[in-house]
């Protein structure tokens, strides 16, 4: 409002005094008019034509040169410097605190003034395409000084000298120069026109804390665009962890791809190539040495240091001081989310120093792809990796469960372990295939991949065919609705000890498993021939699943069951080739204790018991009575022999 009133006032004066300009030009129209300042000849020529076309045309000469009185000419030789602030108060204020203004104040000869950019009498509106300050011309305007070879370039670093070149190759420069977009960002869009400050300055538009706001002028809703790259919650909860725009999109060079050298790695390596570099945390020396060769061989070699070490701050010395732990979720969002849920993550954040962090498995700078043969996360190396902690003698081994100490050892002997380590199969299951690689949870946790409700689906990742059979079986929770625990894969196959189903250990061991749930039938099984021979170590004798089927097990009332009337003969024929309709009437789970169901057996048994007890009791009494009599008999006989011997003598 103030500005507007001022313009209104000036306008009225200008209009009144426009004739006065002709008075000024009477002298200053002479191209030879000069004066000497500081020993230098300076032209005092003013091009009336260009002034007439300028933005200031209407305010007349005295609008700026206010110390000239047209009615009292010639004026004094030395006039006051024109003060733009009379009309352009704020831009001038900004200029004065700016890098340019401060340099000017210090008397630096290279420092630009208002006129350096805007011109003097030929000043044009920045909306005028011919103006030096027109958006299309800004890069060349700034480039007058900020390019290689100019006196200003001597004051700046090499990279700063290339600014103009780099800009013209950047997506912004390309937009401006190649596509003629006037909405693209030019120097002043980021650095501002007048309030140009070094980025260290907290008020600078390009300060680390302000740069996002600066970019957001054009790039709205950056969060949505970066959702895949940067964990969404991070924006809200821990914005300080989010890298600022320029950490990925190097200024001046910005493209739709990441740039690596917003903060050049060489700078980091100046210190971190020193093998003796360390910091002290809780009295412990921690090496800060970074093996660059190793890093160059890592899968992260395309990233520069600050891509991960985001909290680098120019205001600090060194810039990386207290930059904190690397947050991998910036790029690996889903993995870290899983990790945070996992028991490893929970324990880690709970302060358990034994709990592994990302870097404990993936290493810090030598991160390798899981496809790299030497990577600790390569399938063949996974058991060893997990075994670093999950092994007898390791502290975690004791902390988890005393019974599970032999996890790695039993895995090695299991069919999965043998497949991996002996047969060299890459498709065999390792720790992470069942436990997941980042979301490991104890089996009791309902979210765990090895929870009883999820384990079948976990195994189905590979054993899909079995899973499909199992889903139809009586043991499947979708078929049988019960409060009792239904068996799932690992109840029969065990987890780490999983073995071949045709080997003795399995065929013997599984019987014990079945007995856990089917106690009664398993007991009666052991009363019959199959069970008895099994107990003596027979692997060949029929086990539960030889008759009932294994994964596809169905109740015998189901016509598809291996024990259904039309299939049972065939089932028995697997072992008994001459099996027949009568033969299958053999009671494999018979017990002579059940009078209702098996009367023949019941009465046979009791008849036998009666016969046995009768005989034993009769002869028991017979013997008990005989014994004392026989003792006397023995005595009598001995005396008789003695007697006959005496008479013989």
């Amino acid at each position, binding site marked *: 409002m103030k500005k507007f009133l001022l313009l209104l006032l000036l306008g009225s004066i200008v209009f009144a005094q426009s004739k006065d300009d002709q008075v000024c030009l009477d002298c200053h129209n002479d191209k030879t008019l000069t004066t000497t300042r500081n020993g230098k000849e300076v032209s005092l020529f003013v091009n009336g034509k260009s002034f007439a076309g300028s933005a200031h045309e209407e305010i007349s000469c005295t609008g700026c040169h206010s110390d000239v009185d047209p009615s009292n000419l010639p004026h004094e030789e030395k006039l006051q410097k024109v003060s733009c602030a009379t009309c352009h108060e704020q831009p001038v204020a900004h200029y004065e605190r700016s890098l340019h203004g401060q340099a000017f104040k210090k008397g630096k000869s290279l420092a630009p003034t208002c006129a350096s950019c805007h011109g003097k009498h030929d000043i044009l509106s920045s909306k005028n395409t011919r103006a030096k300050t027109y958006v299309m011309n800004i890069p060349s305007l700034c480039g007058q000084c900020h390019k290689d070879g100019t006196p200003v370039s001597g004051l700046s670093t090499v990279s700063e000298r290339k600014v103009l070149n780099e800009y013209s190759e950047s997506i912004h420069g390309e937009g401006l120069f190649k596509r003629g977009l006037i909405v693209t960002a030019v120097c002043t869009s980021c650095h501002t026109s007048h309030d140009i400050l070094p980025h260290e300055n907290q008020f600078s538009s390009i300060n680390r804390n302000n740069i996002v706001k600066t970019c957001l002028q054009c790039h709205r809703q950056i969060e949505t665009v970066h959702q895949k790259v940067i964990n969404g919650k991070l924006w809200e909860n821990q914005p300080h962890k989010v890298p600022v725009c320029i950490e990925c999109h190097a200024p001046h060079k910005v493209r739709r791809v990441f740039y690596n050298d917003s903060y050049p790695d060489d700078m980091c390596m100046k210190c971190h190539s020193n093998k003796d570099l360390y910091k002290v945390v809780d009295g412990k020396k921690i090496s800060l040495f970074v093996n660059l060769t190793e890093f160059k061989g890592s899968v992260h070699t395309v990233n520069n240091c600050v891509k991960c070490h985001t909290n680098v701050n120019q205001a600090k010395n060194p810039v990386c001081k207290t930059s904190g732990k690397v947050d991998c979720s910036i790029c690996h969002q889903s993995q870290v989310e899983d990790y945070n849920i996992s028991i490893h993550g929970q324990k880690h954040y709970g302060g358990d120093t034994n709990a592994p962090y990302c870097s404990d498995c993936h290493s810090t700078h030598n991160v390798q792809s899981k496809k790299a043969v030497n990577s600790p996360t390569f399938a063949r190396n996974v058991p060893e990796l997990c075994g670093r902690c999950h092994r007898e003698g390791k502290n975690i081994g004791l902390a988890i469960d005393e019974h599970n100490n032999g996890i790695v050892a039993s895995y090695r002997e299991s069919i999965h372990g043998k497949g991996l380590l002996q047969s060299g199969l890459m498709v065999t299951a390792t720790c992470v295939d069942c436990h997941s690689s980042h979301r490991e949870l104890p089996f009791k946790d309902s979210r765990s991949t090895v929870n009883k409700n999820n384990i079948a689906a976990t195994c189905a990742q590979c054993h899909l065919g079995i899973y499909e059979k199992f889903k139809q079986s009586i043991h499947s929770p979708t078929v049988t609705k019960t409060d009792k625990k239904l068996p799932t894969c690992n109840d029969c196959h065990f987890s780490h000890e999983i073995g071949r189903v045709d080997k003795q250990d399995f065929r013997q061991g599984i019987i014990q498993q079945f007995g856990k749930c089917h106690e009664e039938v398993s007991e009666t099984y*052991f009363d*019959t*021939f199959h*069970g*008895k*021979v099994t*107990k*003596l*170590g*027979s692997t060949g004798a029929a086990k539960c699943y030889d008759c009932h089927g294994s994964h596809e097990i169905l109740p015998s009332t189901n016509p598809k069951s291996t024990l259904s009337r039309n299939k049972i003969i065939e089932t028995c024929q697997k072992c*008994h*080739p*001459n*099996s*027949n309709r*009568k*033969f*299958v*009437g*053999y*009671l494999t789970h*018979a017990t*002579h204790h059940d009078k209702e169901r*098996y009367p*023949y*057996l019941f009465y*046979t*048994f009791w008849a*036998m*018991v009666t*016969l*046995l007890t009768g*005989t*034993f009791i009769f*002869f028991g009494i*017979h*013997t008990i*009575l*005989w*014994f*004392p*009599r*026989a*003792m006397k*008999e*023995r005595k009598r*006989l001995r005396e008789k022999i003695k007697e006959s011997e005496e008479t013989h003598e």
Partner: protein
Amino acid sequence: MSENTPKGKYYERFDSYSRFLHLLIITSFISLAITGMIIKFSGVGIFQFLSELLGGYAVTGFIHRAAAVVTFIYFGLHIFYLLRKKKQKKFSFTYFFQGENSLVPNKRDLQELIQTTKWFVGKAPRPEYGRWTYWEKFDYWAVFWGVAVIGFSGLLLWFPEFFTSLGLPGWLINVATIIHSDEALLAVGFIFTYHFFNTHFRPDKFPMDTVIFTGKVHIDELKEDRPREYEQIMQNEELQQKFGDAPPELLVKAARIFGFTALTLGIGLVLLIIYSMIFLYQ
């Protein structure tokens, strides 16, 4: 007394054929008993160990079936022996079943049983036992019955597919299992306790009577033990031909070693069965 013996002081009570059959019975019976009890008490650790010791269930199964074949053989040999004897001596069936030395129980056995019981309690003198006492007859028929019952049920278990294909119901195999197993328990329990006591461990014979191996018994012992048989021999010249010298030292020694082995195995098995039944089996 001994001056009446024409040839020697030892009477041959069992001919070599019978002795050989008893050898077959002992070896096959003990084999069957051990291998059979292994499967009957398959849930008991000591029997599982025994199975392993013998080479596993497959070996014990083979031994059991082989010994069963031996059993059927001695059963057949015995029938053959009886028929041959009947033919040679021209015995009639009546004599065979009711004669003086028949193994078929008769009225006198009942009388002797009663008198024996009285004698046990001191109410009567010792009965004048003949060639076969009533408990010996029981032993004989127990084996006869046992071989038939256990043998047939065993065949049923050995060839279940064959027998069911003849039309026998499947549950009969279960019945056969119970009969086979419990009858065997009776046989084993009876032989290894009462037969052992009645024949070997009773104080007047302790520790063993080797007559079944050597075949010979001293005339004094015979007279003392079986007065009626003694009388019978003294009245029969043909029978007196069976008197002879003492059995050779070596034979007696071998008989003792074999006998004691069999007795030890038997007693040991009985102890294991008792242990299993009392402490481990249900």
